[in-house]
């Protein structure tokens, strides 16, 4: 096959980001006349293959191996490098999940082939797809030019493709194997666990006042708390506010925090990094206040104000009382 999509297991189901990658592979495959295959591996490989075989792709590869039953970067890195070497596709697609961050750079180093991470879109140049990535705090976009000479590893940012457009079909399933020396696995992993939430579930909140690093310092947090109280909203934040210890972790919105979809998401001093955006882009009305007119979050905003949150918050609280 020309494009190999590597699946990620989410408790026996195909990870949503892998489904987006399959959608991308189908679209790019039909546009550039490239055939698509899917790799399912690990302890749930059989279940994942069965699901993957119901998509419109050429074939599904199933890989089971005792060293892949628990995820380790050692094992997954070695396995994917071998499969890519054996199958020699033009492209290897991944969703940009946390697991892909963890082991795919090792595949890149083993194969000495480029890993173009976090692609957001593609265009056509000389009959081939050219992939773009955001750089410089998501304010600029660049096309990346991988060198020739073998497979190109690409991971896609969340929502680069919509999995609603995935095409059904039926694919052949082929069982493959890899050779992994036990000595390669130098890591022992324990079972995943969830930290005590200990706070409010923001996913059902109607109104959210969310603060970012632009709030400036811990002493300014009460300004936002008061605004939230006056309109009966929950208080939330971006990661740096939690990292700095200004708010407890359960306030964090984003890929490592909560996902919310309130009627109003009032973002105060938040720049709009993708890891934040994935947690709030479903909000019905997004209002953004930021002193930087180029802040990427303005692109998602229904209403935007270029201004200083420290000036605006107190006056807004007063006016809403």
């Amino acid at each position, binding site marked *: 096959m020309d494009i190999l999509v590597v699946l990620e297991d989410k408790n026996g189901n195909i990870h949503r980001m892998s489904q987006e990658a399959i959608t991308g592979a189908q679209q790019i495959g039909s546009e550039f006349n490239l055939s698509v295959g899917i790799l399912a591996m690990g302890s749930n490989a059989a279940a994942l293959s069965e699901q993957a075989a119901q998509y419109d792709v050429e074939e599904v590869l199933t890989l089971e191996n005792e060293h892949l039953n628990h995820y380790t*970067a050692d094992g997954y890195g070695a396995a994917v490098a071998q499969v890519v070497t054996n199958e020699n596709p033009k492209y290897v697609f991944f969703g940009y999940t946390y697991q892909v961050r963890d082991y795919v750079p090792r595949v890149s180093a083993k194969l*000495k082939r480029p890993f173009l991470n976090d692609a957001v879109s593609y265009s056509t140049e000389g009959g081939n797809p050219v992939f773009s990535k955001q750089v410089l705090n998501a304010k600029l976009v660049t096309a990346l030019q991988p*060198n020739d000479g073998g497979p190109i590893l690409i991971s896609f940012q969340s929502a680069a493709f919509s999995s609603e457009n995935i095409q059904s079909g039926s694919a052949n399933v082929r069982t493959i194997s890899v050779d992994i020396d036990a000595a390669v696995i130098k*890591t022992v*992993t324990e079972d995943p666990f969830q930290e005590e939430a200990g706070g409010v579930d923001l996913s059902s909140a109607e109104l959210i006042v969310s603060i970012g690093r632009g709030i400036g310092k811990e002493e300014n947090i009460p300004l936002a708390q008061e605004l939230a109280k006056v309109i009966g909203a929950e208080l939330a934040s971006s990661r740096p506010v939690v990292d700095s210890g200004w708010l407890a972790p359960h306030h964090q919105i984003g890929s490592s925090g909560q996902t919310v979809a309130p009627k109003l998401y009032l973002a105060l001093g938040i720049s709009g990094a993708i890891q934040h955006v994935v947690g709030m882009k479903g909000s019905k009305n997004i209002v953004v206040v930021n002193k930087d007119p180029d802040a990427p979050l303005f692109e998602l905003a229904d209403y*935007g104000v270029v201004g200083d949150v420290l000036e605006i918050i107190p006056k807004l609280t007063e006016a809403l009382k």
Partner: protein
Amino acid sequence: MKICVLVKQVPGSEAQFSVSPDGSWIQETGLPFEMNESDNYALEEALQIREQMGDSEVVIVSLGPDRCQKVIREALAKGADRAIHIKEDSPYETDPYSIATALANTIKDEKFELVLSGLQSDDLGFGQTGVILGEILGMTTATLVVETEIQDGKIKVKRELESGWFQWQTMDLPASLAIQSGLNQPRYPSLKGIMGAKKKEIKESSFAEMCDIDGLQAFNGLSVQRAEKQTEMIEGTVDQVVNKLVDVFKNEIRIN
């Protein structure tokens, strides 16, 4: 324990960018540069491990143009023991494999037991350099590290998984760990630290000397993001903006 910390200098999060006339990179003059955010946390973790273990050394390695001296000095002022500056005069290097190769060639004889890097650089955002470096040097690797414990010749790390899940993993040393922000509270340099940093060693080498391979990928021009959604911008004095916001909240969004 010998610990290496990779520190990159990047434009601050409030930097306003304009593309250089030839479209290849940004205009750097006047930009605020600072230590990459997650690298600052990696440095603090290294300093804390040194404090716990005693008899340890923390070495900073930074690759980039002369301006990087500023973050190197800052890291030394916070307490790192010495530094290596790999000079690269073109303002940016776009391929994490080449960067990691130069870093690996620079440190391979140092026999570090631990290499700490940031999870990703805020300018290029590859999220790869520390992992590739580990693979090149035959180290175990872990990313999204939010806690570390050294235990008889091994390291146990807590890794962040998606949506609030975590996982512990125990790894052989030497290890290369990509550190996630928030796992500690980075210190500020003391006056004594700043004075002391002036006497600390900064060894220099060059990227050309340290990177013996061709890059795997290159940038092909920069462009500005396009907006996805029609945003209604509210303009005016602070009072006018506030009045309009109240109106939007009450009459458009109907927050009651």
